[in-house]
Structure formats: structure tokens, C-alpha cells
């Protein structure tokens, strides 16, 4: 099993926004989804998840509403809104550029 590693700085917002493109999720759902999709390589610490969610709310990229979970418990669900979708697009293209640039440096012989 791969070692659990910290997220690359600056990618958390992008990962959260991407996770929310599929469906509205609560905090735990977002963390679980990132963990599963990355096959346990990426773990989102709660200590960074909740401040990040507050930041996304403040930027107006997501909205939050309280709903009942499957287990009939109240949870705060986050939904991606238009501005967030736009932001995700910008962050994805920036990330692509960055990883392509790093790739070029690493492949240099």
C-alpha cells in the first residue's frame, strides 16, 4: 500500500470543487470521496478540510444547506455553484500547465 501523503499545497480547493461536480456532499462525504478515488493515497485532514470549506463559502464558489442524511441525521451539504465551476476550470488549467512544466524539467536528460 502506498504511503499516506499530504496533499500538494494549493490543491485542496481544487479537489473539493471537483468532488462536488458529481453531487452535493457533506464534509465527511468529501473527505471520504477524495480518499477512495485516490485509493487511500490522499487523506484530507479535517483540520484543513473545514477551514477550506469556509473559504470556499466565503468566495461564493459553493453554497451550503442543512439536509437530512440517509441515517436521518442533520448534515451540512455543499453544492457547487456557477462561480465555483468557473473557478474549478481556472484551477484545473493552471494545474495542467504546472504539471506539464514539471514534467518537462524531469524528463530533461
Amino acid at each position, binding site marked *: 500500500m502506498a504511503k499516506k501523503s499530504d496533499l500538494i499545497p494549493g490543491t485542496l480547493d481544487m479537489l473539493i470543487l471537483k468532488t462536488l461536480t458529481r453531487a452535493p456532499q457533506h464534509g465527511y462525504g468529501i473527505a471520504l470521496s477524495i480518499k477512495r478515488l485516490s485509493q487511500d493515497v490522499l487523506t484530507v485532514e479535517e483540520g484543513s478540510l473545514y*477551514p477550506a470549506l469556509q473559504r470556499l463559502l466565503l*468566495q461564493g464558489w459553493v453554497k451550503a444547506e442543512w439536509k437530512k442524511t440517509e441515517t436521518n441525521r442533520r448534515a*451540512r451539504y455543499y453544492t457547487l455553484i456557477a462561480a465555483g465551476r468557473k473557478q474549478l476550470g481556472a484551477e484545473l488549467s493552471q494545474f495542467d500547465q504546472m504539471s506539464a512544466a514539471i514534467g518537462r524539467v524531469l524528463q530533461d536528460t
Partner: protein
Amino acid sequence: MNHVARFFRKMWILVRRENVRGELAEEMACHREHAEQEFQADGMLREAARYAARRQFGNATQTLEQSRDVVSFGVETALQDFRFAIRQLRKNPGFAATAILRGSHGSLALRVAIYLQRLPETNSDCDTQSGFRCFREVSLAFV
């Protein structure tokens, strides 16, 4: 435009800050419960699962404060500091009284001393001058 919207969102959060805090706490409690359930589903005993969920979550108070800091104004932090200072002074009235008295007394004595020191320069009368000099020494000793 974005800044304006963000400012108003912050204002709204400031107005309902008690609710915001409660909501964050509830949200995190919900997170811990979910984690606990998952640990139990993996075959952990109830108590062990609760402990594991808490451990995984880490310092909840710190996370709560950090989350709140993201959306709070700098002024709010300054206000908190000010309230803290007042509370400290209230807890220790003896210290507060000494600090206030010492502060005002010190500056008053200094002002008198400077005043007395300046006066003789404009006064040509020798007797008055020596009198003032005497006062000056006393007042300087007082400072």
C-alpha cells in the same frame, strides 16, 4: 465586485457568529460520528471506534477556531484581544490600580519636573530661580 460580495458575506457571518460557531461544531460532530460508524462497520468495538474517530479528527477546538478565522474580520480579533486585556485587568484589580496610578502619577510628575526645569530659563530673579531649582530636585527625585 467579488470583494464587495465577500465583505457582505463576512458581515452576515459576523452578525450570526454564534450560529456560525454552533453550525461548525455540529458539522464536525457529524463528521466524527460518520467516522465512528465506519470504524464500527470495519469491525471495531463501539468505544474503540469512538476513540479512533476522535483521534483521527484531531484537535476539534483548534479546527473550529481555524475555520472561524477564515471568515472573521481582523477587527474581530482585535476586539477579542481588547476584551481579553480588560478581563485580565478585572481578574487582578490590584495590578490594574497600580498600573493606572503609576502611569498617571509618573506622567504628572514628569510634566511638573519639565515645567519647573523650563521656568528658571525665562526668569531673571535669582532667588526665585534657586527656589525653583530646589523644587526641581525634589520633583525629579519623585519621578
